[in-house]
């Protein structure tokens, strides 16, 4: 019976192709926009997640909370303290440094380029792998010996030296007031997709270089934050709590006085913001579904009037109120669900094609698709109830007499 009803519904829809299509259009646009907005949201979220994975999701900064009023010098860190943290937590730490960064002009011959220098330990390659193309990475000797060696990417060497392979070339720069000569020992190539480039800020004019953190952080100097990469992502929250507690105890503080800013937390925040945004905009788009539903109700009312005689015939042949009701409900549900399917293809297709054009892997979740089809069918049923009951209530004699 249900299959019969569905067949009848399809033939009725086919009989009025143009009208059916125009009616569906409301649902197509509604579902299409909901699907594309939710999918864009999902894609953005996954791209942000990728971004955080890129910079290391286990990464965290530990520093004295900005809400602490009486900040003392001892609230900052020294290299000795960093070494103690390293010793105590040992294997649980994948990488730790003093989060040293400075920017300065690098001068080679007559070329001056604004550079950002990041102080790193020799094992930074473990947590932030880069693709070395020329020379070598910084080694333990560079770090311990505070050698003025740097590693930079190909864009930076091009900007500064005009060539990619600049191993062995030198430049001068002024760090903390002291002008010295630095040697390029290795060059890596950055591989960023367009989104990463956009979000991380592709530096096409200036330069970036890694140099031993010991150059930027002196043994007796205090620095503001510890940068730590936990070894294990699953236990990182617990691990960071321990680190925080340990550091706070050393400094005679409460753990609450320190702030631990992890990439994972930040990722979660970003995720919930994006999710909330997508839901809100998707909800607004869903209003267009309401309009589509009203369109369906309108056309179903017309259809019921047109087919009054058919209703009369069916009733004379033994169709009960329920049978007529179900027939018309099936029709409106199918009308709406067809619109939903087309809407999904359109919305999903738009996102996938758009993503492909931008070089991004678009995500259309199957759950959302199922939900959208289900929802459109629900809209069809809801807005079909009134016309269907109108059809079902028709008096058979009147209906048979209808011309």
């Amino acid at each position, binding site marked *: *019976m249900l299959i019969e009803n569905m067949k009848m519904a399809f033939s009725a829809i086919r009989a009025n192709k143009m009208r059916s299509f125009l009616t569906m259009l409301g649902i197509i646009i509604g579902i299409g926009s909901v699907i594309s907005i939710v999918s864009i949201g999902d894609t953005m979220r996954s791209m942000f997640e990728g971004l955080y994975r890129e910079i290391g999701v286990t990464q965290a900064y530990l520093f004295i909370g900005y809400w602490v009023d009486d900040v003392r010098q001892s609230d900052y860190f020294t290299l000795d303290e960093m070494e103690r943290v390293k010793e105590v937590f040992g294997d649980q730490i994948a990488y730790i440094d003093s989060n040293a960064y400075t920017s300065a002009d690098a001068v080679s011959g007559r070329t001056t380029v604004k550079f950002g220098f990041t102080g790193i330990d020799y094992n930074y390659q473990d947590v932030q792998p880069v693709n070395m193309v020329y020379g070598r990475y910084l080694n333990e000797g560079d770090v311990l010996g505070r050698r003025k060696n740097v590693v930079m990417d190909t864009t930076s060497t091009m900007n500064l030296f005009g060539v990619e392979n600049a191993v062995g070339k030198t430049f001068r720069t002024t760090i903390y007031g002291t002008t010295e000569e630095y040697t390029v020992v290795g060059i890596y190539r950055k591989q960023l997709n367009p989104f990463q480039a956009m979000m991380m800020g592709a530096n096409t004019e200036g330069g970036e270089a890694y140099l031993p953190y010991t150059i930027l952080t002196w043994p007796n100097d205090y620095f503001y934050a510890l940068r730590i990469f936990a070894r294990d992502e699953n236990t990182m929250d617990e691990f960071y709590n321990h680190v925080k507690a340990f550091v706070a105890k050393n400094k005679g503080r409460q753990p609450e006085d320190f702030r631990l800013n992890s990439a994972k937390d930040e990722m979660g925040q970003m995720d919930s913001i994006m999710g909330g945004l997508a839901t809100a905009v998707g909800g607004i788009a869903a209003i267009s579904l309401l309009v589509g539903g009203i369109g369906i109700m309108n056309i179903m009312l017309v259809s019921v009037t047109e087919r009054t005689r058919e209703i009369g*015939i*069916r009733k004379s*042949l*033994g*169709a009960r109120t329920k*049978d007529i009701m179900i027939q018309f409900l099936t029709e409106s549900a199918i009308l709406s669900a067809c619109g939903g399917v087309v809407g999904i293809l359109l919305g999903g297709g738009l996102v996938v094609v758009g993503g492909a054009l931008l070089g991004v892997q678009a995500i259309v979740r199957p759950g959302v698709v199922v939900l959208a089809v289900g929802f459109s069918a629900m809209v069809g049923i809801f807005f079909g109830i009134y016309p269907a009951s109108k059809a079902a209530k028709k008096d058979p004699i009147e209906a048979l007499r209808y011309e």
Partner: protein
Amino acid sequence: MGFWNRGRTEDLGGGWPQRKVEARENGAGKLWDMWRKSLKKALKFPEYITENVSEELIRLEDLVKVYDTGALKVLGLKRINLTIHRGEFVAIMGQSGSGKSTLMNILGCLDRPSMGHYYLDGVDVAAMNPDELSLIRNRKIGFVFQSFNLISRTSALKNVELPMTYAKRNKRFREQRARVLLERVGLGKRAEHMPNELSGGQRQRVAIARALANEPPLLLADEPTGNLDTAASVEIMELFSQLHKEGTTVVVVTHEEEIAAFTERIIRFRDGEIVSDKPNVPREPEPCGGEGFGASEEGEAIGDTDSDRQKALGDRLC
């Protein structure tokens, strides 16, 4: 032929539903009946709908129909008493406004009487609600309308299947039976045709096949030849005669004497009352008597245009 009447009759020639009760006496018949009953139970149709219980197929007792048009009440039917037995071939005649359409609607369970009783197959349907009436129409009555009333954009086969669909028959059963019925009315090769691809006579034959789908005890035809030419009219009426001979009760509502002439009993209506109820010797299609066609008793009731048609119908027959 058809498996639905296996063991029920000796004569399976036309695959036609036969209502010869004595044929059920053999063992296979009993088994069939048992299976049928259990199936009916499973389908949850009340017994009064699925079983034939009364020899008096139609009994009207003091039936009154009042039309309430707001300002004034119009008496459509005035205390009708009428009995039609199983297996009769009856014509109900009268001009428009005579009440025959009203009676037709009530007999067809499309409408309910205002007062009195209507026993269809022993069950009083006067007090039933619309859905119960739908069930009754589905199982007890086969309609044949003047304007055929086939569902457009639906093949002949599907049209014939429709009453069986509402009787919750399975697809295989429906299709097989529909094909046999179409074969029976001579449209076996046109099962897949749409109504608009068929001639009027063919459409009416599809409608008859459809009316027979659920083996209803009563075949109710409302001006079945009204939209047909003479040749097709004769064909249709001959089909009814044949059905009647095979045991079906046929009630034809008409205003044409020639049509009524095919029946065995003619009931005339005027102003909501039965004015005459006489047996009729049905006209055989073969012999060609010059006089007495239709045994017209109320010839004055028929207009000029109808007279021409009468003549034509008579000519065709001779």
